């Protein structure tokens, strides 16, 4: 399978850099999978899991909260506002994230921002449920 270059960068560090087969992005207008040779594209991200597949049947999951994906001929670059690998996720971190999202929800009156915060809370709750099995 053809691979392409993928970089996942958060403000604090570079989380992933290397060749991958496929990446599933939680794009703001619906999840999308990026494969090699994808047309140049730029999209914003919502809160959700980003799945990196470097060889078939082996996925790494990273929880991202907002950010951008830039797909061009050099590969895919994801600038995540916050990114937490699934291995590092714990109950407390998720609780804190949910609290933050709820505070953001309460703080705005803008319907678009309210909607974004609402979906972020739903995603985080889902993630928490997934962690509990």
């Amino acid at each position, binding site marked *: 399978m053809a691979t392409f270059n993928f*970089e996942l*960068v*958060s403000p604090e560090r570079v989380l992933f850099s290397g060749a991958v087969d496929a990446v599933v992005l939680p794009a703001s*207008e619906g999840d999308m999978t990026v494969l090699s040779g994808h047309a*140049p594209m730029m*999209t914003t991200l919502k809160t959700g899991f980003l799945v990196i597949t470097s060889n078939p049947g082996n996925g790494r999951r990273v929880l991202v909260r907002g950010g951008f994906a*830039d797909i061009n001929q050099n590969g895919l670059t994801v*600038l995540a506002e916050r990114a937490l690998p699934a291995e590092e996720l714990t109950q407390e971190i998720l609780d804190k994230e949910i609290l933050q999202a709820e505070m953001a929800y309460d703080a705005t009156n803008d319907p678009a921002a309210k909607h974004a915060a609402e979906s972020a809370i739903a995603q985080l709750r889902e993630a928490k449920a997934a962690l509990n099995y």
Partner: protein
Amino acid sequence: MPSLKDLRNRIASVKATQKITKAMQMVAAAKLRRAQTAAEAARPYAERMAVVLGNLASGITVGPETPRLLAGTGADQVHLLIVCTAERGLCGAFNSSIARLARDHANRLLAEGKTVKIICVGKKGHDILRRQFGQHIIELIDLRSVRQIGFEQGDMIAQKVLGLFEAGEFDVATLFYSRFRSVIAQIPTAQQIIPAQIETTGASSDAVYEYEPEEGEILATLLPRNLTVQIFRALLENAASEQGARMSAMDNATRNAGEMIKKQTQTYNRSRQAMITKELIEIISGAEAL
């Protein structure tokens, strides 16, 4: 002529000071390593952000639709200076060189008849600028309680600046901080952040991009985030520079104290010998007189 006891006291006090400066130097060295890795880890994000923004902006023609963060308000009457300094002193010329750069800038603007507003991040810069620009300072942001600078702090400052911008409080914002080049070289830098300065890369603009959601919408969310990233990066660079400056300042101080101790000890020994010789002469001449 100081007495022997005076000299002894003086040597002891310089030695105590030397111990403190030595300890401070070592603490700064340890903190520097941490601050430096943090600053270097944050670089890729800021660089990619600039590239993405450059790609995006090169495809856009400035018009009435363009977000004001990119195009500006069309005026440059009111300037906001965001001056980032340290919370603590004893780090050589670090704080004063940033403050001097900001002061020169402010003076030049005032001479041109512009209005100047200042936000101070860090107590030391506020202390220096207060004397001359007391009435221009609109806010002091205190980061003393923050041990490790995180993205939240950058975001907090960026939100404040954005709030002011949206309220029409200023037209142009400039960020003052110290760029970390090496332990001995920190470069005070002025960077204009609103309207955003974007280097457009002509090379990749020929590719046809798809945008999801609309181009303008992406730009509208990307620009505030870019502001946060720039401020965050400035804070990290500043933190590394501060520790670097403190380390070299304390290294100098330790060396100076060492030299002082050497000199004082020599004077002490000389006057002690002189005293012994004097006493001996007194005894001998007394015995001879008999």
